[in-house]
Every structure is written in C-alpha cells, then in structure tokens.
C-alpha cells in the first residue's frame, strides 16, 4: 500500500447516519497509523477539510465520521453522499499520538473518531475513554466501545431526562462537569479531541486540578 497523496478519488462503499453524525467508508488504499487524518473533498478542486479516520489501520475499509456544519462549504453536500459515489481523499497526515500505557482519552461529539481507531488498533489497554455528547444518540459505535473498553468507557450527556432508558450508565451533565467533579492522576497522559471550546475548557480544568500541561495533548477540529 502507498501513501494516499496527492488527493485522489475513492468510491464510497458505505454511508450511514449515526445520530446527528454521518459515517462514510471506502476501500482503504493507503497505510496510516491510528489517530491520523485524511483530507476530504467532493472533487479535485473543491473545498477540502481534514477528518480523523475512525477505522483501524489494519481494516480493509477506511472511514470518517462527521456532522454537518451549518453554512459549511463541504459537509452539507458530503452528508448526501451515497454508496457508489466518488469523493476525493488525500493524506494521511497528522500525528495525534497513540501512546501506549495508561492514560485518559477525552472526546466530544465526533472527536471520538481517533480514539475509536486507536481502540481498533489494540491500543486501548490501560486507557479510560470519556465521551461527551448532547444527546444519547450521539454516542457513536456505542456497543463496540462498551465491548472493547468495558467499564473504562464513560459517557456524559447534557440533554437526557432522568427517566430515559437510554440514560443507564450515563453521567447526566456536561463532560466538563464530570471532569470537575473527579480527581485526576497527574502521572497519566491525557489526550483530548473535539471542539476548541471543549479542549480549552477541559484542559483548564485538568491543569487547575494539578495535571501538568506537558501531559495534555489536544487535537482540535480545524
């Protein structure tokens, strides 16, 4: 396999709606490491954006997870892509670290994608995954993550009623509220992925709780 650079067309093999997100996959024709990104466009000269791969590096398929950005140049059209359609892909690039050993993964929304890829790559031993979402439907690949990570997979949901059956095992409240309510081991590594607001807020809380900034690595949606 080779590096998928420069951007080239791939044919979509699956297009799935997952809560408020969309998952697209295509036959993988490049090598990558868990946590890396690809550049995606609808055609050769159109607007492109970077997305973390959610699939594992040894799988036959490569895939991305995204939500529609209101007024966005790419995602409203990307959301209507169907199996058999072409999209343009470049990369992989980036170096979001997949540290082995104990650590905390923290994500909001589709920021869970690189951690899912790492879990599929067998890198979840000793890790705890905290995932924040507004609605219960937005815990993507829930069953898989519960199976792979067991009790080390913790969900925080801000919009869930107390009597909702979907609420079992969920912290009712924001991810930041959960992190604020716990103590955190300063010896562990902390890897954050998601919106800039989440990353900045969580990083501030962890630092205030004694985690050295050098132990926190973040990837922000650009």
């Amino acid at each position, binding site marked *: 396999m080779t590096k998928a650079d420069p951007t080239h067309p791939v044919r979509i093999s699956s297009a799935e709606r997952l809560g408020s997100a969309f998952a697209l996959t295509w036959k993988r024709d490049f090598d990558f490491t868990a946590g890396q*990104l690809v*550049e995606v466009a609808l055609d050769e000269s159109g607007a*492109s954006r*970077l997305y973390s791969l959610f699939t594992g590096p040894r799988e036959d398929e490569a895939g991305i997870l995204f939500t529609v950005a*209101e*007024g966005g140049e790419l995602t409203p059209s990307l959301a209507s892509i169907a199996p058999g359609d072409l999209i343009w892909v470049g990369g992989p*690039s*980036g*170096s*979001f*670290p997949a540290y082995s050993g104990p650590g905390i993964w923290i994500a*909001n*929304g589709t920021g869970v994608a690189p951690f899912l890829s790492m879990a599929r790559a067998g890198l979840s031993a000793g890790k705890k995954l905290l995932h*924040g*979402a*507004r609605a219960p439907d*937005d815990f993507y690949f829930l069953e898989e993550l519960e199976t792979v990570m067991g009790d080390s997979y913790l969900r*925080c949901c*801000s919009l869930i009623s107390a009597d909702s059956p979907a609420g079992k095992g969920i912290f009712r409240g*924001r*991810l*930041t509220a959960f992190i604020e309510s716990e103590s955190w081991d300063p010896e562990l590594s902390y890897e954050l992925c*998601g*919106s*800039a*607001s*989440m*990353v*900045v807020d969580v*990083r*501030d809380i962890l*630092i*205030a709780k004694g985690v*050295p*900034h*050098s*132990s*926190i*690595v*973040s*990837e*922000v*949606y*650009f």
Partner: protein
Amino acid sequence: MQELFGLTAQDLIPVAQSLSLKPFAAKQLARWIYARRAHTFDEMTDLPKEARERLKEGFSLGFEAPVKRTQSADGTVKYLFQASGSYLPNRDAVSPRFVEAAYIPEPDRRTLCVSTQVGCRMGCLFCMTGKQGLQGHLSPGGILAQVRGIPESEGLTNIVYMGMGEPLDNLENVLKSLEILTADWGFGFSNQRVTLSSVGLLPALEEFFRKSRVRFALSLHSPFEDERRSLMPVQNVHALSQVLDFLRRVQARDARRISIEYICFEGVNDSPRHRRELVRILQGLKTRVNLIHYHAIPGSPLRGSSEKVMEEFQGALVEKGIPASVRRSRGEDIQAACGLLSTKELLKAQRAETLDY
C-alpha cells in the same frame, strides 16, 4: 441597503454596472471608499450626479467605530469593536460579539494589530482568545473597520494581523482585506508594511503565498515538536517540520520576508537546549526571530521568562548568525481592562446553551 465598505474593486463592478456605469468606475468607487476615505457619496465628484443619487438610495458607505477605548501608560491603545451584521456573516448572533484592535505608537512607526475572527479555534495554551472558542469569521469589512474606524487611522504606517483569531482559518476574507489594504485604489499600504502571523495551517499557507505579497510571521514557540504539541494543538495536524520545509521552498523561489514569533515561557521553552534546537531547525531559512514577553493570562500554568533569560536567548541566536530581537512589552497595564475578560464571561454564558458536550 448594501454595504460597500469591505468590497474589493472586483466586487464593486456589479455595483457600478447596476448604476449604468462602465466597469472601470468600480475602481473610482473603491478609491473614494478607501484611498480618499470618503464619508458621503456626495464627495465622489468624478461620478455622475445621477449615479451618486442612486448610490445614496441603495447603498451604504458605513463602517462601525469602536465601542470602547483603553489607553496604556506607554501610549498603546486597545479598541473594542462590536462584530455583528455584515461584519460577522453566517452568524445569527443574538447577543453582541466583540473583537479588539491594538494601536501601538513608536518613534519610527505607528502600528495597528487587527483581529480576523471572533474567538479562535486553534486552542493554544497561552492564548486568551482561544478560551472563547470560535464565534465567527470576520468579513473583509469587519477586519478593515478596525483600520478605518480608529482616530489614528490616517497616520498608521504598519498593519499586523496578530490580533484575535487565526488569519489563515479565515483565508478568503483575509485575502480580500489584504488586497484592499495594499491596492493603489485601496488603503495603499506597501506589502512590506503589512505582516500576517499564523500558527501555520499548511494548505491555507500555500494559498496565502500564491495570492498575497505581504510579510509572514510564523508562531513557533517551541522547537521541539513533542513540546510544541502541548502548547499548540495545531502541531498534531500540521507538523512544524513540514511548515518550515514549506517556508524554505517559498524562499527558494522568491525572497519573501519571513519572521519567527517566539513567546518566552519560563522553564518551558527558554533553556539553552531550546536555543540550540531553534538554531538547528531554522537552518536554511533566512529569517529573524522576535522574542516576545508573555502577558500571563488568568489560570495559565505558563509564566513569562525574565529579561535576563530573554537577552541571553537573543544573544545565543545572534551569535549563531540568526538575527533576533526582544520585542518590547507594550500595553501590559491595560490587558485586564481591555474587555477581553468581560467578553469571555459574556460569551461563556451565551454558549452554555449551544455546547455539544
């Protein structure tokens, strides 16, 4: 009313045509708006009277003045601008958003530091603006209102894109604003008097160098990629080594002026080890390093390096043949009063309803 402020000469061609004017009249119109700083359409005496009347009926020349002014003891002035309406397109802001511009007078120059976004999504550890997240992209008019709207506007000699936001994350609007700033029909600034500073978003950086001739400054802040990661999340996406390789290729094809911004953090990036590595990674790049005092922000684990350490750092770079200077700290006494903190609190209250975590 369509607002004309912020439109390029090209954008003004349909306006001219709608007034039954020839396309070249778009440049006349642009020259009145920017170069001659017209306040009314009546001043545009080289346009037919009928066209001026129709301009009054359907168009506005307006730009917003700042809503707040804070002056430092050292003469630096911070201006707060409200960003709404056409300045913040694609954003139905219920509550006001704000951006800042800093006017920095010095004996040999009068510089304005402008913002390009409301908030920022780069999430740099040392930056106060990043704590707002990204609230929106400023339009060209929203960026240039900062230049036109301050009382010192006509005396400005230099413009730096180093305020709130990552300029290359708002590339299309920033490029239009740069065109208006530097065109002869625009504000007429020399390309050598305008500097854009960025964390180094690679695809956008390539387009910037293709389409603009203004100076470039890279926010570097640590020569070690693993350490830079914890200061600047962009490192995980666009590695410093790739950005520097790209800048070397740019300089190989044209003699573009590139500088390095390096904020000195005590015990984090100011050691002899950092100096040596900085010298090593800058090999082959013709550049100047600006060492910057850190204005600490509340709750930050980072502290600024001492004067002595910064001078030693500077001396070590110069000794190895890299021009370096320590940028004088300006306006430190008005940081807390500049409105950013209150803006942040306001925005935090607003976005509590829209967070997705």
